[in-house]
C-alpha cells in the first residue's frame, strides 16, 4: 500500500482542482442565497457564506460524488448544502456564549454586524435552506430515496448524533479532566462525522452501490479523525506554511490529543488513520480516486510539520 501513491497520476494538479471547485461552489452559493425579502436577514446569511473558507468539505463531497460516476452538477447542490451547514457552525462558534470572537477571517463576525438575534435566525435559515437544496436538487438522475438518504446522512452528522452532541459534551466537560474516551467522543462527533457524511452523501447521490458507500464511510471515518488530529497538532507545533503555532486550544485549556497522549503518539495515530484511509480508497479506480487522494494529501507527512 505504501507504493500506492506512485500509481496515482502524478500530473494531477491538486491546487488547480481545489481553486476550480471553490470557484464553482462560490458561484453556486451566490445563486442559492439570493437577496430576498427581508433583505437584512438574507444579507446576514450571505455575509459569512460568501466568500467563506477553503470549501474543503464541499470539495471532498464533489470528489466523492465524481468518484462513483456522479456529475459535478449533481454534486453541486449537495456541496452548497454542506457549505451552508459548516458556515452555520462557524457563525455560532463566534457567538458570545461560545468563543466570543469579534473577528472571523479578518472581518467582524456575523453577530458583530447583525446582532445576535438576527445571526441566530440566519443560522436556522441557512440550515433549512441547506436541506431544501438537497431535496429540491434539479436533476432527474437521483431518486427520491437517495436524496432522502443524503439528507439523513447530513442531519445525523450535525444533530444529536453528531456535531451538536459533540459540542454539548465539549461544553459540559469544560474545566474537568477529560479522559481519552471522552475526547474520542467529542472529536468523533464534533469533527469526524461531518467529514464522513460529506464524503458518504456524495457517493449516495453519485449513485454509488452499498459496497462503495461502506468503503467511503470507512475512508471518511479515518480521514475525518486524522483531520481533527492534524488541527490539534498544528495548534501546538504550527502549520507547515506559516510555521507559527496558534496555541488557541492550549490558551483555552481545551482537551486535545497532543495534550493527552503527547505529540509523537498523536502523529503516529494520525499516520495510522491515513494509511487505513488509503487502503479503503484502493478499492476504487485509482484514476478517479486521484482527486480525493490528493485533497487529503496535505496531512500525510506530519513530519513536514515544523
Amino acid at each position, binding site marked *: 500500500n505504501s507504493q500506492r501513491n506512485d500509481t496515482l497520476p502524478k500530473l494531477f494538479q491538486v491546487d488547480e482542482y481545489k481553486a476550480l471547485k471553490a470557484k464553482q461552489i462560490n458561484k453556486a452559493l451566490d445563486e442559492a442565497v439570493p437577496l430576498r425579502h427581508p433583505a437584512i436577514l438574507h444579507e446576514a446569511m450571505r455575509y459569512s457564506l460568501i466568500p467563506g473558507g477553503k470549501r474543503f468539505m464541499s470539495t471532498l463531497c464533489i470528489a466523492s460524488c465524481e468518484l462513483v460516476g456522479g456529475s459535478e452538477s449533481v454534486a453541486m447542490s449537495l456541496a452548497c448544502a454542506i457549505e451552508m451547514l459548516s458556515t452555520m457552525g462557524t457563525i455560532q462558534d463566534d457567538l458570545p456564549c*461560545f468563543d466570543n470572537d469579534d473577528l472571523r477571517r479578518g472581518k467582524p463576525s456575523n453577530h458583530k454586524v447583525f446582532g445576535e*438575534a438576527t445571526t441566530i*435566525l440566519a443560522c*436556522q*435559515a441557512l440550515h433549512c*435552506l441547506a436541506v431544501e437544496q438537497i431535496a429540491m436538487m434539479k436533476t432527474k438522475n437521483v431518486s427520491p430515496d437517495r436524496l432522502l438518504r443524503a439528507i439523513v446522512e447530513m442531519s445525523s452528522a*450535525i444533530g444529536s448524533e453528531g456535531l*451538536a452532541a459533540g459540542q*454539548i*459534551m465539549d461544553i459540559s466537560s469544560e474545566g474537568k479532566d477529560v479522559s481519552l474516551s471522552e475526547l474520542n467522543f467529542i472529536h468523533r462527533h464534533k469533527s469526524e462525522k461531518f467529514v464522513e457524511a460529506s464524503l458518504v452523501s456524495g457517493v449516495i447521490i453519485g449513485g454509488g452501490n452499498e459496497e462503495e458507500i461502506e468503503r467511503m464511510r470507512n475512508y471518511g471515518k479515518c480521514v475525518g479523525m486524522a483531520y481533527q488530529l492534524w488541527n490539534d497538532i498544528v495548534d501546538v507545533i504550527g502549520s507547515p506554511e506559516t510555521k507559527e503555532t496558534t496555541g488557541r486550544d492550549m490558551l483555552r485549556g481545551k482537551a486535545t490529543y497532543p495534550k493527552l497522549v503527547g505529540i509523537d503518539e498523536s502523529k503516529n495515530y494520525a499516520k495510522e488513520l491515513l494509511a487505513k484511509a488509503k487502503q479503503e480508497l484502493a478499492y476504487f479506480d485509482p484514476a478517479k480516486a486521484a482527486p480525493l487522494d490528493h485533497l487529503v494529501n496535505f496531512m500525510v507527512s506530519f513530519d513536514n510539520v515544523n
Partner: protein
Amino acid sequence: VTMAMSTSNKNKSYWTSVHEDIGAHLRQAVVVKEPVEVYEPMRHFVFAAPVNMAPVLCVAACELVGGHREQAIVAAAALHVMHAASFIHENLPLSDRTSLIPKSKPTMYHAFKPNTELLVADAMLPFGLELLASSDNPAGNNSGRILRVMVEMTRAMGSQGVVEGQYNELQCSQCDDDDRKLNGITDVEMTYETYKKKEGRLHACGAACGAILGGGSEKEIELLRRYGFYVGMIQGIVSRRLGPTEEIEELKKLAFKLREVNSFNDENAEVIFSLVDDNITHVLGFNLG
C-alpha cells in the same frame, strides 16, 4: 345524567386522541440515553415546548383525505420537534439583548446555559428530519412523499416562513414609535405580517403535509393548506392578544367557507372544521377561544 355523546363531544375526543397519540409517539421516540448530558436537555425541550395545532392538523388532514393515522403521526411529531427549536430560540437570553424577541414571555426558568440551549435547538431540526425519514417504509417507495414533506417543513421553518416571522417580530420590538411613523408602518400591520409568516405558515404546512402523506389530491392539499393558514392566523392573533376580534371572526368565516367548496366526506370534514369552533378549542385549550 348520562347523555348520548354529542357531536361536540365526539369532536373533542377526536382532537384529544390525536394529541395523545402524538405525545405517545414523542415519548417513545425521544429518550434519554447516554451521554445524558446530550439527551436529557433535548428531551426536556421537546416536552417543555408549548403545543401548537400544526401537528394535530397534520394528522387530521391525513385522515380527512383518506389516509391512516400512522402515515402522519411521525410527521406531526417532527413538526413539534422543529417548533421546539423555535421556542428555544425565542427565549434564549442573548448577551446583546435579554431574549431573542424581548416582547415574548420569559415563560420558564432556563434549565441550561445559553450555549447548551442553542446547541439543543441546533439538534432539533436534524432530529425532526431523521424522525420523519424513519417513517419511510422499508421498500422506500414512499420516499417521494416524505421528501416533499421535508421541503414543505424546511420552507415553513426557513427565511420565507417562521424565521421571517421571528425576524419581523424582532424588528417590531426594536424600533420605537418614531421609527414606525418614519417607515409609514403601523404596529398592527407589522404584527399581522408576523403571524402570517409564523403561525400562518407553520399551520398551513402542518395541514398540507398531512394531506400529502395521506395521499390527497393537489386540490385537497392546497385547500387544507389554506385552512391551516387561517387556523394559524387565528392562533397568532389570539396568543398575542393583539388585533381586533372582528379579524378573528373574518378568518373563521373564511375557514368555514372552505368547507362549503370542498368535496370531502361530510362527517370527516365536520371534525377538522371543528377546530375553528369556539366550544372545541376552548376545551382543547389551543387558544383559539
